[in-house]
Structures are given as C-alpha cells and as structure tokens.
C-alpha cells in the first residue's frame, strides 16, 4: 500500500475516539484488500476447494439420513475453521511485510488497532460464510429444521472465530515461520468453540426444539471473553 494513501486514513486527530480510529483502520484495510484481494482470494479458494473435495467424495446421498445432521455440521465447521486459519493472519502479516507496522503503531492507539483488525477479520469471515454456507447447504442437501437458530449459530460462531484468532495473528506476524504457526497456535484456543458450534448446528438441523439456543449463548460468551482478554493483552504485544 502506498504510504501517502494510507497516511490519510490513519492520521490521528485530537478529537478521535477509539471507535473512529478503529473504523478508520477497518476501512483502510478493506480498501487495501479490494486492491490486492489477497486474503479474500486465498480464504475463498481454500474453502471452495475443500467444499468441492467434500462434496465430490461424499455427495449428497452417501451418508444415512439419521447420521447427516451431525456429520454435516462437522464437515461444515471443519471447512469454515480451516479456511479461516488459512487467511486470517494476513491482517497483521501484511503490515509486517509492507513495513507499515511502525507507522500504524504511531498513528493509532493499540486497542483501536486491535478493534480495526478484528472488524476486518469479521468482514472476511462474514464474506466466507455468506458464500460457503449456502453452497454447502445446496450441494449437500442439508435440511435445516430451525433456520433462525442455525443462522444465529453461524453468526456467533463466526464472531468467536475472529475473536479467538486476531490476537494470535498479531503475535505470529512478529515471529518466524508464520503460516504454519498460525494454525498451530489458534487451533487449541478454538477447540471449545468448534465443539460448541458443531453441537449447535446439529441441534438446529435436527433437534427436537431449538429452545433457549444454549450453544449460541456459549459461543457468544466465548466471543465476549476472548475479545475482552485480547483488548487487555494486545497493548503488551503491540508495543514491544
């Protein structure tokens, strides 16, 4: 990204708040992403390739009707999680590669940087889910009994994914062997979320009632905890 262009977006003014700074960083990242389309392309291609592989090898009628809700939830979340892990680290790695990290440190407060990057990652995840989830439902004949609960599970699960990985992305951007490290570090943190999301999707597709949406609440709690802890810890790794 060209420094003068970026400079206009991240300049800190006296009256700027955390939120305006965060939104400025978010918009700047979106703009730079629209120009290169690196993260979005790699995430989507990874997801589509996996989806095609799953659909091709399993098809829509290979799995018994009674087994489908659980197995489909597992397959869907494996596709989503590993696609996300393939590209979400870009948000910080690209700053490191372009050498813009120091300027970003000077221009915005750490929490605002974290929030901006989180918003950007959530945008990426939203785009990923908007394309992959309907495609998965169509290709695999995934019948969902409670669409509202299913949609809420996708949204909270996606937010949890973003919340659990953004701080790790900031760390691995400053480490060696970035690509492999990101998955290795993120996966243990995401495991509780993945288990919950799979259970929730299964319940939405098959359960007797979706009353209370317990898994959605657990995923939301996970997201809130991870975002709060990350906001507290982020300044430590950012100002090193």
């Amino acid at each position, binding site marked *: 990204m060209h420094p003068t262009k970026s400079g206009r977006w991240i300049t800190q003014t006296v009256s700027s708040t955390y939120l305006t700074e965060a939104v400025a960083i978010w918009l700047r990242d979106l703009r730079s992403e629209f120009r290169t389309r690196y993260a979005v392309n790699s995430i989507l291609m990874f997801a589509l390739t996996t989806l095609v592989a799953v659909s091709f090898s399993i098809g829509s009628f290979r799995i018994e009707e009674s087994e489908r809700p659980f197995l489909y939830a597992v397959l869907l979340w494996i596709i989503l999680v590993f696609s996300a892990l393939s590209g979400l680290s870009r948000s910080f790695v690209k700053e490191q590669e372009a050498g813009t990290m120091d300027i970003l440190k000077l221009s915005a407060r750490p929490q605002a940087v974290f929030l901006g990057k989180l918003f950007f990652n959530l945008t990426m995840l939203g785009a990923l889910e908007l394309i992959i989830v309907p495609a998965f439902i169509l290709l695999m004949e995934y019948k969902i009994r409670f669409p509202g609960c299913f949609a809420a599970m996708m949204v909270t699960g996606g937010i949890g994914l973003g919340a659990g990985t953004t701080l790790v992305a900031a760390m691995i951007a400053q480490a060696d062997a970035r690509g492999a490290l990101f998955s290795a570090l993120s996966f243990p943190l995401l495991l509780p979320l993945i288990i919950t999301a799979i259970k929730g999707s299964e319940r939405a597709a098959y359960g007797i009632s979706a009353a209370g949406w317990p898994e959605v609440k657990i995923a939301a709690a996970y997201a809130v905890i991870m975002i709060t802890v990350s906001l507290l810890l982020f300044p430590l790794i950012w100002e*090193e």
Partner: protein
Amino acid sequence: MIFKILLTIWMSVTIFAAFLCIEPAAGFPGEVSRILFFHVPTAWVATLAFFLSMIASCVYLITRKVNADFLAQSSAELGFLFCFLATVTGSIFAKSTWGSFWNWDPRQTSIVMLLMIYGAYFVLRSAVPDHEKRRVFAGVYSILAFCTVPFLVFIVPRITSSLHPEDTLNPAGSGMDTKTLILFLSSLFAYTGLFVWMLRLKVRMLKIMDKEQGVKFKV
C-alpha cells in the same frame, strides 16, 4: 542434597506401600485401582504446574523480571511432562476398565486440549528469535489459553457424560478408607516434592544458560 535424599526415601516407601500394604479397591478388575497412587498425583502436579506457569507469566508481564519467565517456562515444561504421564497412565486405566485406550471421554478431551495448548506454547517460544519478545508473547499466549480452559472443564462434560471414576475413588468421598487416604495423600506429597525439586533444577539451569549466553555476546 538432604532434600533429595529424603525425597528418594519418601517416594520409595510410598511406591512399595502402594503395592504391598493396600487391598485393591472393590468394583475394579484386578489390581487396576492401584493406579490411583500414580495417576491422580501426576494429574494434580500437571494442573499445579500449569497454574503456576500462568501466574508466573502474569508476574513477568507486570514486573518484567526475567526470573519470573524462567519459572513460567520451567513450570510449563514440567507440567507438560506430568500431563503426558497422566495421559498415559489414564489411558492404561481406560484400557483395562472401559476396554479401549482412547474413547474421547471428556477428561481425555480436556487433557489432550492441555497438551495441545502447551505444545503450541513451546512452538511459539521457539519461533520468536528476540528474547524479550519471546517472553512477552509466551506470557500473553498462556493467559489467553487459560481463558478457554473453563469452557472445556465446565461445558464439554455437560454435552457428553463421563466414565471417569470420581465418586468411587474420590478422596473426599466415603469410598476410601483411612489407610488408602493416608497413602494417597503421601503420594500426592511425594509427587509435589519431586516437582519442586525438578523445578528448582530447571530454573537454575535456565539461569546458567542465560548467563553463558550473555558472556558469549560480550566476547
């Protein structure tokens, strides 16, 4: 030195007593229940070590004293070792009572989760070349990981039921007679002593290595 000798005697006596002085608990096939004196203490030490490591990380992040990080690293490494031992001994117990070494019992899930978190912790440590940065990152990661543990401890067990014997062999429960309880506590004490001894060795080693590296850089 005297600590080492006392510990050796204490551990040997405990191990002998675990095999010779206690009747196998009812309700378990054969001699299986004797694992209580070896499996539970390793699991306890692993928990203690990981908790200590997390606290030491917090202390390091606040005070930036290198010694706190040495403690965090040593404690995490020893915790990993004891966690691995707990996994293996637990797996042997699972084979002889439930019929398979591994069946994703919630207890097994959470212990594997711990192994994965600390595996990732060591990978992170080895991947950051700068010393100062490495310490901060390791501390941050260990706090972040610690925040996900309640989900596995409290939520996963509710989704699936556990076969882990707690009521039958719980030290607080009525299922353990006085003799067993005394030996169990003595075994806990012995393993904790072993952990403390190993921890002190490890911290001393890290300090010496750090000093040597400093000398090398000066020359």
